[in-house]
């Protein structure tokens, strides 16, 4: 036992966290001294030697060219006991010379060898537990940050599209799982003019979302005052430069549309150039300027154009052109241009572009970056019929489900604030719409209950009762079925599928009185399907049209 009366000096193996600071060279054999923590790199010959050593290793006799060995010797270590479990060196016990100045006996070594053999697996388990706890904590922090970033970003996306006579304006925002910094906005400039913004903050997560929020506020404040796109971007740039975090900047295109004349004037801070589809093909509008937040005093060039009746403008973010197919081929500008050119006047430009994109990426696509599209299309005539009343309010959800009915126009689409109690009015709107499609009596009542309960869940879990966090509701009718889709922002993650409600247990106080929502929904409709992606959760309720 003499050998281990000395303090067990600790030498850290490759995966032991929080190493003690290495001490200065230790004079030989003081009675009490701090442990020597020396990391042995895996590349050091000593590492392989210790890993395969059959027991304690006498350093005084070891002949090996090894920096770690030298360091240990300088630190006063005479005997190293490798801690090996499952063939892996996880640490060592380091001992100085015996107090008696005699060599370690074979008994000492055997005892130490036995101790190491028993301690190694236990230490490894402790290491793994600690590593896993750290990883879990890290994952949780990351998930939390994603949620916060999504929340910030969604706060600043417009809730409504501007309604302009003679124009069809559509917007799509598809967040990536790791939220990027895309944004878009429409700003009322007075005199019928509309400011249109599309931007992208480099970087992702909360920092990008905060810069996006700041840029949004600056543009909202400055655009109505300065109007001219070049002046607005120059001002935004000068305000952003001093407060921009390192290695971040914002690309942004800002334009002013005069709906009456079709005049579209814009300036560009390093963003993708807009495409215009004309009768003669697709053209690119050009304007140059550095991204916002890099250098002060930038002058932004303005470009003036007129969008003729029948023409359409596309503003978009990188996420569209940089999307990849399963073979890692990029969607790219030529494909986008082609998709715009082949668009026919009968379909929505934006819907068609998204269809093309999804056909390219395939169904298993994991979106790498946010995708933002804004289309401004001037109709041929001057009548109101070009303006579709039924376009869903934004943000529009991306639905990957292979479901033909999503391609058709919904009979009803609307967005409600995520405020407790809002389900009652939503239920009534849906009921009024579907009652014109032969759903009545008991079936209508059942659908009403299912819709109310689904919207209630969306408000309670998806929006956490916050009126600022919207819930989207969409109703589609096809020959076989009516589908009601309720999309929330999944703030609480998936709706918990609570234990099946048991009335007896509830009456006895063994279950809480609540927990009837999902139970009722499933019994009220013919199908209920939950689809979660990109920070959104959509519950689809299906009611067969010929069922009774």
């Amino acid at each position, binding site marked *: 036992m003499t050998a281990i009366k000395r303090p067990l000096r600790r030498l850290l193996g490759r995966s032991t966290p929080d190493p003690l600071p290495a001490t200065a060279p230790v004079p030989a054999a003081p009675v009490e001294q701090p442990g020597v923590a020396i990391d042995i790199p895996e590349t050091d010959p000593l590492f392989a030697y210790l890993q395969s050593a059959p027991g304690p290793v006498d350093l005084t006799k070891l002949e090996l060219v090894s920096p770690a060995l030298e360091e240990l010797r300088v630190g006063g270590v005479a005997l190293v006991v490798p801690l090996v479990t499952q063939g892996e060196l996880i640490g060592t016990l380091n001992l100085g010379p015996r107090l008696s100045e005699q060599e370690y006996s074979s008994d000492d070594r055997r005892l130490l060898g036995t101790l190491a053999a028993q301690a190694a697996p236990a230490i490894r388990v402790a290491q793994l537990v600690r590593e896993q706890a750290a990883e879990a904590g890290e994952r949780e922090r990351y998930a939390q940050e994603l949620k916060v970033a999504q929340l910030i970003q969604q706060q600043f996306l417009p809730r409504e599209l501007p309604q302009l006579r003679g124009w069809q304006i559509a917007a799509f925002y598809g967040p990536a799982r790791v939220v990027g910094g895309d944004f878009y906005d429409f700003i009322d400039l007075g005199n019928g003019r509309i400011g249109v913004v599309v931007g992208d903050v480099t970087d992702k997560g909360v920092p990008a979302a905060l810069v996006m929020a700041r840029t949004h506020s600056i543009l909202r404040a400055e655009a109505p005052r300065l109007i001219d796109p070049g002046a607005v971007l120059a001002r935004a740039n000068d305000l952003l430069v001093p407060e921009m975090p390192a290695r971040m900047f914002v690309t942004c295109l800002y334009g002013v549309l005069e709906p009456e004349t079709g005049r579209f004037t814009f300036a560009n801070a390093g963003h993708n150039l807009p495409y215009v589809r004309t009768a003669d093909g697709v053209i690119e509008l050009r304007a140059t300027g550095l991204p916002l937040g890099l250098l002060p005093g930038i002058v932004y060039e303005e470009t003036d154009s007129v969008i003729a009746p029948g023409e359409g403008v596309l503003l978009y973010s990188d996420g569209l052109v940089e999307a990849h197919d399963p073979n890692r081929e990029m969607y790219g500008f030529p494909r986008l241009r082609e998709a715009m050119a082949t668009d026919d006047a009968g379909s929505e430009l934006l819907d068609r572009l998204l269809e093309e994109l999804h056909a390219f990426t395939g169904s298993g696509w994991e979106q790498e970056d946010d995708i933002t599209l804004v289309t401004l299309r001037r109709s041929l005539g001057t009548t109101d019929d070009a303006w579709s009343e039924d376009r869903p309010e934004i943000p529009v959800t991306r639905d990957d489900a292979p479901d033909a009915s999503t391609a058709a126009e919904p009979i009803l689409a609307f967005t409600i604030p995520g405020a407790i109690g809002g389900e*009652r009015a939503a239920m009534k709107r849906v009921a009024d719409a579907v009652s014109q499609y032969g759903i009545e009596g008991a079936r209508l009542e059942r659908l009403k209950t299912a819709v*109310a309960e689904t919207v*209630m869940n969306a408000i309670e879990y998806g929006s956490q009762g916050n009126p600022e966090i919207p819930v989207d509701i969409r109703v589609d009718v096809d020959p076989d079925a009516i589908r009601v889709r309720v999309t929330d922002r999944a703030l609480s993650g998936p709706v918990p599928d609570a234990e099946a409600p048991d009335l007896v247990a509830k009456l006895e106080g063994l279950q809480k009185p609540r*927990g*009837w929502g999902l139970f009722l929904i499933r019994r009220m409709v013919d199908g209920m399907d939950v689809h979660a992606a990109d920070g959104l959760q959509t519950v689809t309720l299906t009611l067969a049209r010929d069922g009774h």
Partner: protein
Amino acid sequence: MNDRRLTVEALTSTAGEARLAMRGDVDVAADEALAAAYAAAAESGATRVVLDFTEVDYINSTGIALIVRLLAEARRDHRDVIAEGLTDHYREIFRITRLSDYMTIADGTSASPKPVGGTS
């Protein structure tokens, strides 16, 4: 904000019976009104509590939970609970939630009841 917030009038006609005449939505906002009305019924010494849903046209899952809670209290206090005036749809919901196994589902209302107080 909710002009359909439930009001409940606790009435009595025959000895030992309290009628809770509800008007509005039976949802989360109905909590206090329903609890107060049941308390008034209990105080009147009623052994039967009639829940009159004639003027109710919306009951959601949180409302079901309130009824479950009321039913649990009534069973503990050895009071019978009778539901009246439910629409066919809510009869179906009371059936699939099995509430109808623990309360009588009836039609019609008794004549000329008089208030026992405890309105809210």
